[in-house]
């Protein structure tokens, strides 16, 4: 809640004004019954029609003022809620964009999505309603009590007497409610995940005829969400009748005590009538307050989940450049780097290599040997547990992200295209010109783009699903090349390309991007055999390095792979 409050704070002036306006409106609302009681007790007995009309018109005027004030205040409240939500959601998205990979892994993507969607929505509703009802209800409550005090102080004491009891109930319920609603939201994460999974995996699910099974799984999650929500709801359901009853009992007491007071000649029946009228207002205000607490419980649970992310520490600190720089002839260098995802077993151990500007490193190794992890470290998605990674002699931990990450052109294994034009997918918001886009597409052998009727303005479907796998990869490679990167990273980026296209692309890279330092992960030796350096990875360690010819001499595993692949050619 603390974080949320800091978002509301800038609007405290507006909220203040809104409060005043709402206050005036509410006073008008409260003034009406007072006028009414005045009329009944004082004006009517005078038998003066003129006075009756006068006070009648006054009531109408008050009603109009209440209308205007309340509408204006409501609109201001809505505006504030809109602004707070806009900023909160923006900041949340920004924070999530910059979360470290480790944090993303811990929060999990479905949970991030539901926090951005469902939780921000809950908070929006809370901020909106809280202002609209939250000002009015307490004013009605306190105002009502004050007016009743002036009217009949002794009777009011009865009302005040039960207030602490009511407060205790509300506090207890809302505190428990926040916990229960937090659990509901956590179950919602699971629901988001299931829908997401099914949307992406429908082919497999249908192929394996698992739709019935998936329905069952969803049913479990659905039931869980419902049950948790129901539990919270049940608790909330208790508050309304209980509060209602207590106030009504107080009301009865008022009548009884009032009777004694009238009997003693201290009070008048008209006063008791007016008093009861105020009690009804107070009762309604209290019910609104209860509703507010339900809203608060729900919104508070969501605010807490949002806060969890907003207050997550920035894990990736930028170290001091001076201290972590040295003269180096190398462009990219790994120095004895070790890393583990789960901190139990090393995924990489003692990796070292060095590349001069314009050189190419080929990485080859078995599935799961840690090839992609090298790229994850170089891009600083994770920091190594041991050793250092240097670019131009500077430890990458001392390079600001903006400088570091704009050096690269990357294609990951399962990379991401979005529903926009081909051009935008290649440009990726970098503001590149048409020539850059076109030459990158050329080098990536993405000539198929030109055959589309609208060329680079061809609209991609979600996840690029209207392109074949090989076409997707070529668009991705074009993206990597388009900004003429210092360092090119390709992680098995041509696996869906046929050999002819792959070979043509390599030729183009060699020719047009000779100044680019490249790290290429591949399965086929043919993709990397012309690289300046090749390292062979096994179980996270380098078991052989050198040029193609050197490795053929020195590394048995490498030779085996090469022979297997060549054998397939010659003897097939």
């Amino acid at each position: 809640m603390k974080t949320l409050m800091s978002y509301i704070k800038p609007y405290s002036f507006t909220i203040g004004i809104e409060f005043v306006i709402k206050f005036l409106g509410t006073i008008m609302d409260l003034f009406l019954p007072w006028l009414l009681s005045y009329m009944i007790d004082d004006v009517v007995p005078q038998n003066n029609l003129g006075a009756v009309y006068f006070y009648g018109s006054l009531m109408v005027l008050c009603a109009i003022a209440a209308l205007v004030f309340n509408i204006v205040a409501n609109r201001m409240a809505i505006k504030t809620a809109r602004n707070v939500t806009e900023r909160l959601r923006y900041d949340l998205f920004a924070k999530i964009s910059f979360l470290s990979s480790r944090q993303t892994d811990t929060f999990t993507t479905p949970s991030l999505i539901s926090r951005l969607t469902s939780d921000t929505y809950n908070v929006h509703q809370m901020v909106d309603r809280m202002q609209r009802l939250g000002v009015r209800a307490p004013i009605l409550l306190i105002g009502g009590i004050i007016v009743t005090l002036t009217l009949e102080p002794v009777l009011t004491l009865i009302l005040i007497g039960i207030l602490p009891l009511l407060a205790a109930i509300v506090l207890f319920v809302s505190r428990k409610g926040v916990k229960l609603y937090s659990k509901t939201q956590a179950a919602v994460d699971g629901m988001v995940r299931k829908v997401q999974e099914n949307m992406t995996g429908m082919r497999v699910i249908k192929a394996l005829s698992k739709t019935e099974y998936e329905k069952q799984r969803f049913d479990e999650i659905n039931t869980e969400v419902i049950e948790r929500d129901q539990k919270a709801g049940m608790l909330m359901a208790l508050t309304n009748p209980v509060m209602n009853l207590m106030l009504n009992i107080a009301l009865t007491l008022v009548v009884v005590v009032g009777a004694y007071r009238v009997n003693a000649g201290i009070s008048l029946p008209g006063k008791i009538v007016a008093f009861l009228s105020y009690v009804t207002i107070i009762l309604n205000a209290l019910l609104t307050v209860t509703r507010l607490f339900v809203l608060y419980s729900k919104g508070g649970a969501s605010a807490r989940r949002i806060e969890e992310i907003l207050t997550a520490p920035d894990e990736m600190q930028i170290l001091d450049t001076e201290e972590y720089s040295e003269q180096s002839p190398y462009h990219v260098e790994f120095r004895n780097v070790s890393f583990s995802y789960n901190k139990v077993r090393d995924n990489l151990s003692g990796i070292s290599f060095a590349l001069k500007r314009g050189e190419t490193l080929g990485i080859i190794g078995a599935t799961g040997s840690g090839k992609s992890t090298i790229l994850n470290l170089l891009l600083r998605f994770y920091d190594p547990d041991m050793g250092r990674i240097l670019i131009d002699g500077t430890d990458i931990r001392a390079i600001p992200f903006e400088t570091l990450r704009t050096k690269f052109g990357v294609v990951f294994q399962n990379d991401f295209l979005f529903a926009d034009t081909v051009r935008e997918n290649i440009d990726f918001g970098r503001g590149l010109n048409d020539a850059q886009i076109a030459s990158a597409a050329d080098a990536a052998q993405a000539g198929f783009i030109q055959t589309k009727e609208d060329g680079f303005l061809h609209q991609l479907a979600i996840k690029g699903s209207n392109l074949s796998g090989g076409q997707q990869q070529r668009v991705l490679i074009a993206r990597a090349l388009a900004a003429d990167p210092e360092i090119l990273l390709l992680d098995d980026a041509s696996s869906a390309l046929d050999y002819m296209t792959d070979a043509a692309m390599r030729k183009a890279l060699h020719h047009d991007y000779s100044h680019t330092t490249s790290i290429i992960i591949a399965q086929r030796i043919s993709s990397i055999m012309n690289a300046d350096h090749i390292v062979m990875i096994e179980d996270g360690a380098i078991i052989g390095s050198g040029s193609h010819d050197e490795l053929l001499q020195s590394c048995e595993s490498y030779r085996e792979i090469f022979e297997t692949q060549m054998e397939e050619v010659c003897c097939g």
Partner: protein
Amino acid sequence: MNPANSLKKRELKPAAEKPRLKKSYLLLRLWNYLYQYKWLLLLAFVLSVASNLLALVGPKLSGNAIDAIEPGRGAVDFPVVFHYAGLMVAFYAASAVMGYFLSIIMIRLSRGVVYKMRKDLFEKLESLPISFFDRHQTGDIISIVSYDVDTINASLSNDVLQIATSVITVLGSLGMMIAISPKLLLIFVFTIPISVLFTRYNTKRVRPLFRKRSAKLGELNGFIEEMTGGKKTTAAYHRERVVLGRFSQKNTEAVDAYFTADYYGSMVGPSMNFINNLSLAMVSVFGAILFMGGSLSLGSISSFVLYSRKFSGPINEFANILSELQSAFAAAERVFRLLDEPAEPADAPDACELGNISGCVAINDLSFAYDPGKTILNHLSLYAPCGSVIAIVGPTGAGKTTIINLLMRFYDANAGSVTVDGHDITRVTRQSLRSAYTMVLQDTWLFHGTIFENIAYGKENVTLDEVMEAAKAAKIHKYIMSLPEGYNTVLSDNGVNISKGQKQLLTIARAMLLDSKMLILDEATSNVDTQTERRIQQAMLKLMKNRTCFVIAHRLSTIQNADLILVVRDGNIVEQGTHRELMRRGGFYYELYHSQYESE
């Protein structure tokens, strides 16, 4: 943006194009959901009427009590006061108990409706054709399943009953007021039409705004889901700010839509209050006149005022509900639109189960286009005898994966037919057709669950031993055992600790447990290194044994032993034959083959 482009964009969001659904239709559909709880609903209704009637008696009782309080020292008739006070407590207590049970019932009911609605939505999703998933934003669908359903629920659980009880309260108060003073009632002849007119006018204006609010939120959620999925790439290019900029735009649109809807929606409360206050003023003026005329007691004015508050309260509430219902209608429209999406066409009425088959597949003169006019496959024919291996090669984008889509009926052909053992596949049940295939795709799909569950996914009642056997054959067992939790390791969403190649091995292990006559390998090992691929070759051969196999591969080495190789180019089969025949021919295949091993 050129017109062709914007046209395409609209195609991607078909929901925006369709005409709005009629309100009466929406109400009917919503009612169907409530109808299953008709008894509970009836009980709730009775309870709420009863508790409201009890509460209604309250003011009358207090009025009676007050009438017994005569002004002046010692003039109060205490037995009467106590009598009525006792009754008040009793009635209020009964009313509270009923109120509580009522809420419990309503929670039950509304959660039941939500549950059913989500269930229906999800089951609908499971029945939709693949083309739906190629066209729709996941986030938008998530938004429907979570937010829209919640919105409907919020108003169903509160509003429907409120409307019902409001009517009762209004009628009840009306009766009471007639009993007290029919003349004063004339005031409402004036104020009620104002409320009605205002409400009508306002709902008409507000409804499209609420539709927009739902749609914009769905759009925003779609964007969020899409971009959260691409977070790593965005970070790698340091494009966070750009994505954030686009997000910001959508975010602003969404909050603006919310704002405008509420801007008008929020007028309802104060306006109704105003009309209320107006009647209060009139009641007191006319009440005073009547009192002066001697036809009304002071206590009666007081009761009348209380009732008139009770009376206009529900009308007030009613107006509020109507405006809240607008958001429910907007949400319901999105929910029902999804529920109304055409499912995969039902199996033909005479469709038979594809039972014991040998697995001969024939494709006859097959043509297909995803978009009319853009032919992907053009009069394709081929025959795959049982147990044969058919390889499909060709440049990317030539339509290879489309053939798979048609074989498994993820899409239906525009012309021509496919037969399995002589059965036209449009005449057999989809389920039996699909389970006759085992499929390993390049695009691996694993779900949030243990490794065991993921491997065992395709087959019922699999033992751990069988799973381990399959994993060993797929050469992934050793890796699995190296994980602290072994086969019970939960695959996390981002699968950080598992590489793409390992995922492929897991899917291969999954396939190994299946027992079907036809096998589809679509770039099944494209991310697996050659060594591992070689080591699993035995297992792959075993997997392929006695099955009719369709293999798509770029590494031509993997398909040299195929019985028939189809070379596809631009949707046409340009060459076909065995590896030897094709090599001898020296055509396109020969070229493709040689390009593989050329270096720069």
